[in-house]
């Protein structure tokens, strides 16, 4: 599904990713953990094609295709989804209109028929209900006036609607209370299938209680310094990053 080799990326002149190698096979969920500034969010932005970052070396392939050569919209149409750590607000853009535009763009690219307003609303309302989102969140402007938790749920709603093959969740757990965490976890688990993979970026082990990963990687100074099973997340929670990184060095 996702194959990253020796990936280096900078913002301006400043190198952030310094040689990441990582493979996420079909159907697997991998967690990426690491201290602030280790490059976790940069990795998610580089994979989704943000123009602030420059790839200076290495490769990333998505289903065998050169991901780094694709425009961001083409990556999304091919089945990549980034749940943002801090989703932007779009004043004046209705959430339902935004979601339908995105869904139809993706469906069109995949050769599926576009949904009309009625078909879309039926689907969106059902998904919103499953995520325990109030109906009016579809009517409001995208993320405008949403609480931190509402914004994250809105990301998960977009993810479940767009049905990606690979989801990158960038600290989707931050700002969520325990109940919301479970709802988000259930949302991701509902997508789990042999055709769905995920890269879950998090600081905390608690999201991984809900979304049990197949592998956990520790990122520090732009490199993966340690990889392991779900146990590694618990070890990190108990010992802290400093010790794990020191042991790896």
């Amino acid at each position, binding site marked *: 599904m996702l194959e990253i080799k020796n990936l280096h990326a900078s913002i301006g002149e400043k190198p952030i990713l310094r040689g990441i190698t990582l493979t996420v096979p079909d159907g697997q969920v991998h967690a990426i953990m690491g201290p602030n500034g280790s490059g976790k969010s940069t990795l998610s932005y580089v994979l989704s094609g943000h123009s602030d970052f420059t790839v200076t070396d290495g490769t990333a392939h998505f289903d065998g295709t050169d991901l780094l050569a694709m425009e961001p*919209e083409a990556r999304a149409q091919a089945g990549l989804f980034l749940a943002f750590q801090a989703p932007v607000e779009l*004043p*004046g853009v209705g959430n339902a209109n935004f979601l339908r535009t995105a869904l139809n763009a993706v469906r069109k690219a995949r050769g599926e028929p576009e949904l009309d307003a009625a078909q879309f609303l039926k689907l969106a309302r059902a998904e919103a209900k499953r995520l325990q989102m109030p109906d009016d969140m579809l009517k409001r402007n995208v993320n405008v006036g949403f609480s931190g938790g509402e914004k994250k749920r809105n990301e998960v709603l977009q993810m479940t609607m*767009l049905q990606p093959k690979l989801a990158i969740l960038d600290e989707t757990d931050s700002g969520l209370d325990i109940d919301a965490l479970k709802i988000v976890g259930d949302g991701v688990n509902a997508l789990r299938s042999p055709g769905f993979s995920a890269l879950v970026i998090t600081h905390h082990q608690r999201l991984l209680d809900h979304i049990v990963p197949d592998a956990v990687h520790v990122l520090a100074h732009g490199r993966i310094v340690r990889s392991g099973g779900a146990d590694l997340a618990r070890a990190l929670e108990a010992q802290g990053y400093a010790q794990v990184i020191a042991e790896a060095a």
Partner: protein
Amino acid sequence: MNAVTASATGFLARYEGLTGRLPGDPAPRRAARDILLSAGLPHLREEGWRYTNLAPLGDARFHEALTEASGFTGDDDLPSLGGLSELPRLVFVQGRFSSAQSVLPELASVRSFAANAEFGALANPGRDRLVALNTMLAEDGAIIEVAEGVDAGSLVLISAGRDIHGTPVAFHPRHSIRLAAGARLTLVEMAVGHGQYLHNPVTEIVLGEGAALSHVRLQNEGLAAYHLATVYADIAARATYDSFTLCAGARVARTELLVRLHGTGGHAAINAAQLLRGAQHSDFTTVVRHEAPGCASRQTVKHVLAGRARGVFQGKIEVDRLAQKTDGYQMNQALLLSPDAEIDCKPQLEIFADDVKCSHGATVGELDSEQMFYLVSRGIPQAEARALLVQAFLGEALDMVADEPARAMLDDVISSWWVHEG
């Protein structure tokens, strides 16, 4: 040589040629001619005209539409009306009323200027020389009246222009809209066309006490055309004038709205959106004069500028010393989609009363790159993402258009703008 005076020469010559054939009292026309003879067309050295150059207008040789057969054969040149097609409509072709293409309203009285030529008291040819030009040469126009207390519903007023076999044509319609006390009307104006021509309409609006006019204006002229519109609105006590203008057409355009609130509790909202690309130039100029206490005025003007387009907003709020408790608001915002686009903005407040609330603001920016990334990261193509953000930007000005078919018509024009832009 006095280049300024020379610029009106072609029009003055045509006036001389038409003398005796123009309708109504010749005296105001002669007075208008004298103004143009001595002062010429407006020029860049005048305070209100610093940003808009009419010199090319003097160089173009316009035929007078009156003496030419209509270049139109059918309804092909009319704009697409969508839901508005169910409504009564007045169609003007090359500035002349086309009864065959019109459907008269039941609840409003309509007469033609050609048969009932009368120059209203609001228009001021001495101050506004395009109005002098119109007064000198006006041949036709719509005189629309709604009687006391009558809700006349919606009416569409269409102007279609085009050059005749490549020769530019000029027309100067003179419209008058009068709503008696408590009367109501939604007027949807659409100006469209092809080729090079000059459309120089003057509209005089008089609203009686408690009357309400919702005025939706589309300027979508041909891209080689000149559109120079002057609208006067006199608003009595407790009357409401809601005006929205979308400027998307013409090579050179100027829309000037002169609004006078002369009765207590009057309300005027003057919103506009300008969507310009290529080498288009569009000037939106307003003067809102508060002459009575307790009136409110609201202006939200948005520009979306691509290519080498240039948008202009000049907005003046005048508050007379008698107009206490005035509530005035003006906001001008521009989105520049290209490094070569330009916006010029001149807000002016002249306040002679001491108990007033007046605010104005202006912003200029580009599309937000983080918002763009968010949209494209969801699979939305760049052009569509830009269109979504631009429509969101325009929404604040556009949302005052409550009439559904009118709003749908404007939305169609805005979304088709992207077919060319994207």
